[in-house]
């Protein structure tokens, strides 16, 4: 439908394929809802506790995206937090930033995830710094109840890319493993919903 609202024209569009979001992983991390974060190097797990720093960390135009004051702090001043990156059209994407270690992984375990048919996500890197396509790659593995659901490999130059995995036997605990494949860390960030 359309209606005029002062100088504006309001168009209301319906989505014929609407699927309700049953669980938003980004909001869960932002709200500190039943999520644990570990650093995994050579099988050695170290927790990444929530910390409140005096200031956020920002990089300006050519530097890293913002790491908020409050974030999960992993060894080596790496962070896991909800932040914003820009996609290939320089639009803001709210997502879970994960600074994976070289030669290792970051594991995020979400509990209390309701059952659903699938997990739908988007993943990418801060496009401005990654668009030259050199050296930024990450592998995201999704699992629940010990079963791998699928993998998605993100490359910076590809921008913000959608992926989906089915949940044949949903359980309430979903584990996400972010493994860095390249030397350059980059600003890897992803969003995920249970639908």
């Amino acid at each position: 439908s359309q209606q005029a609202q002062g100088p504006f024209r309001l168009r209301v569009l319906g989505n014929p394929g609407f699927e309700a979001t049953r669980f938003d992983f980004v909001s869960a991390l932002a709200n500190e809802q039943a999520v644990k974060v570990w650093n995994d190097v050579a099988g050695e797990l170290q927790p990444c506790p929530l910390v409140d720093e005096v200031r956020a960390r920002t990089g300006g135009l050519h530097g890293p995206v913002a790491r908020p004051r409050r974030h999960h702090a992993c060894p080596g001043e790496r962070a896991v937090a909800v932040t914003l990156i820009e996609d290939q059209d320089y639009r803001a994407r709210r997502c879970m930033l994960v600074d994976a270690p070289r030669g290792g992984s970051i594991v995020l375990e979400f509990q209390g995830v309701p059952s659903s048919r699938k997990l739908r996500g988007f993943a990418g890197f801060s496009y401005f710094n990654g668009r030259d396509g050199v050296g930024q790659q990450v592998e995201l593995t999704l699992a629940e109840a010990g079963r791998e659901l699928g993998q998605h490999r993100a490359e910076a130059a590809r921008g913000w890319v959608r992926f989906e995995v089915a949940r044949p036997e949903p359980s309430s605990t979903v584990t996400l493993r972010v493994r860095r494949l390249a030397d350059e860390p980059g600003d890897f960030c992803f969003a995920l919903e249970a639908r």
Partner: protein
Amino acid sequence: MKRLRLLLRDRADAAIALGLFAGYLALLLATAGSLGFMRDEGFYFTAARAYGKWFELLWSSPGEALSPAVTDRYWTVNHEHPSLLKGLFALSNRFLAGFFAQPSSSFRFPAMALSSLAVALTYLWGARLFGRMAGLVAALSFAFMPRVFFHAHLACFDLPVATLWLVTSYAYSRSLASGRALLVVLTGLAYGLLLDTKHNAWLFPFALGLHFALTQGWALANDLRSGRPWWRRLPPAWASMLLLGPLVLYALWPWLWHDTAQRLRDYVRFHTQHEYYNMEFLGRTYWQPPLPRAYAWLMTLSTVSLVTLVLAAIGAGAFLRRFSQHQARSDCTLWGASILIGYAPWLSPSTPIFGGTKHWLTAYPFVCLFAGLGFVHVCQALRELLPRLARPALVAGCVLVGPAVMTLHAHPFALSAYTPLVGGAPGAASLGLNRTFWGYTTQSLAPFIDHGAPTRGRVYVHDTALASFAMFQEDGRLRRDLRATLDIATSDVALYHHEPHMSRVEHQIWTDYGTLGPSAIATFDGVPVAWAYVRRQAGARQERALPAAPAP
């Protein structure tokens, strides 16, 4: 009697040219205070200060100043660009600062003076060939191009190089017409100054080559076929430019005095392998080749008044129709060659586009000279069709009022201003044309920053160079207790100058400041151009009611 008439005519034209020069310069000085400082101006202020110190040392201790190590220490600053303008900025600041209310004007003054010279010379050239009114229309059409008026204020090189291209072209044209040795020498010297201004000068010989081919090419070919001394057709000014040009460049640029060959190579390499900065065009951000070939043409159409372009097309068309017999064949061919060569690099998809329209400003005086010729033909047509309306002053007023209004309305947002052809600034923003760059629009947020920042507050400057921010403070446009920073996380106020690729900066501000809503927005014709955020836990000043968003 004829000589007396010519003398009186020349003096009248000189007086009009002087009036145009003085009037335009006065207008630039009067409007400079509302125009902020570009990123590049900050770099050139810094360079000028360094060169100024060297000049002082040269005066007090020439032996020391001229030693290689000392020369290099000062002239290494910003050595990727030649010295002439920065040296003039330094000298102007040293000797003329006391004449200006704001220090920045003393740096900007030489570029303003050169820009005004371009207006005056455009008049003289147009008047010489096609009459006084044609010259006035040409000069004022140039003066009141919004982007020309904008660049004319700046302590940069873009309008000065257009001026010196025009000066060298004029001297060259006169040397061809008269053959006088003085003009031949002056052409060489002028070319040296052009070389020492900006690397657009490298294209100038191609314009002369094209001009020669079009005006002498056939005759030269005949000479070659018949064994006649073809070399006598070569303009003497070419030898003058070849000899004197590099000498002047070398003499006036101390950075080249040592390790000359390597430094020249580095200079050329810097510009031929320049990094591609980002530029939005039709909704897409370009940052590497292939770059859009339509860029130069569409940006010209969307930023130059249509009436000027139509007049120029009429003038160029009228000239081409009578090319072989036209009374001003050589000069008009030179104008056309300068326009074509000025735009030619953008036939390649590898040519950078990040500087917007300033890349081809050298073509604009010649576009306006053709506009002057077009004006003459329009008046002639009106005399035949509508004799009662065929009053040159009336017609001139009609063709100039639009550009003048557009230019004055656009100030100081000329980089955001577009013509009605694309819907003005709002239409251009919708089309995805560049909204702003260079970080100068901090000026429009200055009242808000002064009011909203805490005492000794830190201001994240975003695209404003630190040296430019310092000039804001030195001029008294921003509080001197404020501290500029490049770190959002430690800032109290964060500025944002919008370009799509810059959005990641704003995202960092949102994340760190915890808000999506700016506290002040600078707009032009309703289009947001730059805005500012204030951190909620800033100091006592924030408790006062903030002023409304600054007017454009």
